[in-house]
């Protein structure tokens, strides 16, 4: 089982993801450089958070054209597990691996805080260690996290059970009051139709142990490991 963490210029959560996988979960992990044109035999690829290329044009818009994205798109099309966190989610949207787009937070500020998210689908690669309706306390830290998709697209997401995480209250209530950024339908994370690519705005790598405020992020990584053990 091998994890790869992609490093774009401006990625800044690459080392945090790496640390959790290597030091907390004791799994083999390597960095993948954005200029590489090929990828080795990875089982799960993580696109970490940060500000790739400064997010100067639009979050994720330039990183999406990095040489490494071509083999990553191939990897995803073959069913490989891809997790995009925050900026990684934005890159997946720009690359068309996930539907929809990201807009500026509705309060036009960067927001960094712990939020609660509700697991809407517990049968994905990324959530099989959770129970449907389980509430995960995981921090967000972003400027552009207002997920947008048109009504047709939103219906399709619901039909296909592609919505994986929604922002909610501590008790699990999903409503505008507990929507930190104005995301459509309180969406915090979605998968593609095939279910092997997850994009999420909250940072599971930032909640890997109670001393940092929560260890709920581990559920997602554990799910991936459980799934990989079955398939490889």
């Amino acid at each position, binding site marked *: 089982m091998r994890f790869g963490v992609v490093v774009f*210029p401006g990625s*800044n959560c690459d080392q945090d993801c790496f*640390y959790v996988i290597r030091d907390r979960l004791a799994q083999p992990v390597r960095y993948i450089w954005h200029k590489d044109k090929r990828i080795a035999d990875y089982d799960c690829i993580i696109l970490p958070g940060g*500000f790739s290329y400064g997010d100067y044009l639009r979050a994720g818009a330039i990183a999406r054209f990095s040489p490494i994205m071509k083999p990553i798109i191939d990897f995803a099309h073959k069913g490989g597990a891809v997790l995009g966190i925050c900026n990684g989610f934005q890159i997946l949207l720009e690359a068309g691996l996930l539907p929809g787009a990201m807009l500026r937070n509705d309060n036009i500020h*960067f*927001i*960094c805080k712990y939020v609660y998210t509700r697991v809407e689908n517990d049968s994905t690669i990324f959530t099989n260690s959770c129970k449907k309706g389980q509430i995960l306390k995981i921090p967000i830290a972003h400027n552009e996290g207002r997920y947008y998709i048109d009504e047709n697209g939103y219906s399709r997401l619901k039909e296909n059970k592609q919505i994986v995480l929604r922002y909610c209250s501590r008790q699990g209530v999903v409503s505008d009051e507990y929507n930190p950024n104005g995301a459509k339908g309180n969406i915090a994370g979605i998968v593609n139709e095939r279910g092997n690519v997850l994009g999420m705005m909250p940072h599971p790598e930032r909640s*890997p142990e109670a*001393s*940092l405020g929560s260890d709920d992020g581990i559920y997602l990584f554990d799910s991936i490991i459980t799934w990989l053990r079955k398939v490889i």
Partner: protein
Amino acid sequence: MIKPHVYHSLGLCDQEYQSIVDILGREPSNTELAMFSVEWSEHCGYTRSRKWLKLLPKKGKYRNLLSEDSGGIIVDDLAVIFKMESHNHPSQVEPKQGAATGVGGIIRDIFTAGARPVASLNSLRFGQLTKPYNRYLLKGVVDGIQSYGNCLGVPTIGGEIYFDKSYNGNCLVNAMSIGIAKKDKVVRARAKGNGNAIIYAGASTGRDGIGGCSVLASKEFKEGEEKRPAVQIGDPFTEKCLIEATLEALNTGYVLGLKDMGAAGLTCCTSEMAQAGDSGMEIELERVPKKEKDMQAWELMMSESQERMLLCVEKGKEKTIKDIFAKWDLQASVIGRVTDDGRVRIKYKGNVVADIRARALTDSPIYDMPYKKPAYLDKLNKLDLSKIPLPQDCNKVLLKLLSSPSLCSKKWVYEQYDHMVQTNTVVLPGSDAAVIRLKGKNKAIAATTDCNSRYCYLNPYRGAQIAVAEAARNLVCSGAQPAAVTDCLNFGNPEKADRFWQFKNCVQGIARACRFLRLPVVSGNVSFYNESPKEAIYPTPTIGMIGIIDDVKLACTQYFKKEDDVVILLGLCRAELGGTEYLKIAHKKVRGDAPALDLRREQALQRATLEAIRKGLVSSAHDCSEGGLAVALAECCISDRENMVGAVIDGLTFNSRSDAVLFGESQSRVIISCEKKNVPKIKTIAAKSKVPFRVIGKTCAERLKISRRDKVIVDLPCQMMSTAWSDSLEKMIF
């Protein structure tokens, strides 16, 4: 022949100009004159402050590490490097870019020492929020800090924000950064070894910020836009790549010296690196990457374009280093060589445009500035308490204090800062001190910034001591042993004797408190001329301090944890109200003397508090500061918004008047909560250090209730206090 008005406009006086002619044995070239003018300015050369800065102690409990541009301490096998710097004037003109480049500059000082930046803090001062320009400044500065720091992936974990009319027309933006390196990987800012390469790395050089350091930092300030061209623009993306490339380059072992091009850019870098390495340097300006065409030599030497630095690299290894920068899409070019003649020689288009002994540039003159106690102070220090009416309704006063701009929660600000990236932040913003763990170790670092400038205005010597004492107390409350200090000294025009008197007394106060508490001042910065045409700012010697927590599991926070804990006050409530927030907010008075401070008692209090925390006896610990005991107790109740805990306080057996007990700001006090069974042990610890100990109440559900002599004087639901405290800043600025 250079005309006097030319060197005058560069900030040099006749005598200084004569010295330059004597040193060179001839008239200086334009480039040389420009170089002298910046190196001999207060900003780079500390000409006016240096005499007094020598008083600051350099030794403490931990082994220290003093470098050219930063300093730190050694903790086990690690070097903890940190420094605070001001970016006041640029922020007053263009708040977003001013603050952003302030953050960028201080972080460069950290990673050019070989340390990975792990945390930032900010100490900010603005004028009254009722003025639209001050609201614009606050929003702009916060935006600048968030945009730069968040992009870099360096968490902004703490700091402070105060508002006072003395900052109308001159805000303060003091940025602090902390970095960690293996202690044998720390690198100095020097050039060594004849023939070694001088490599320029990072962004190109443009006309931005030309003269910024002498023009922006040394003229009294008038609001207006005409200074905009001198403001530098920050590019955090380039800086993020610079951090990674630099740390990778340092890992090769071929980089012998490294320096950020900050104020006065190439001038500072060439002369100071040569001087620090006891060598000389020859530079070809044609090889410097340029943003604009037809730049003059002096412009290239003075430019303050951001995100650039200079490296001294072992001869023959130039390509290895250049390749690393190329990997990160950064340019790096060899622009010169180290020489052994001690001279800085600058060539441009085939001519030698400057040829100066490095030491002549860096040995700036020291001035003995006259000082005099301000006439108004004696009168101001008098406060007749009998003429201050007792408040009718203490609930109202407490709510008013909790919602006042300086005391209210700064959640609106710190939620815009990424304070969690790097996954080390164990105590999040909103407690006495922020705490970051050191991965792979039990130890953690606590950090804080502090300064009550109103105390410093009323009594500079004692006010500065209090700033040191309070910073240390904040660290102790988080379970840390205070370890070392960086200071950022913000004052008015040093040529005015009363301002300089404030400066001198504050430095003496810091020196005395640091010596007593065995805290070295390892780095720092001086910012003078913080004045608007109307008035000078309050003297603001901001203290940045770090402390070491031996066992991260014992890191302590300020908020009550659960009901039925015992609430203890260590320390005394004296009958003093001078300089308090209460006097200002409730009685519209800034008067009296700063609170009394006995360093011996302070030290004892800190020793006892730390011992109790380290023995695991304490559930929470909170320093009493602005707003006094009542505000501190309220904060204990409400600062964990998801788990608010009330308290019944009935043991305030002090004789002073009720407002002094509730809102007085007596020093050397800490509120502790603990389980009942631990009370005797804490009492013994306090007695051992002769620290006044009082059980003042216990925690309970929902309300804060304070009574004295069987009369309830405060009774408020936590929810109401929380609303007043946490939502008010946002309300004031929109």
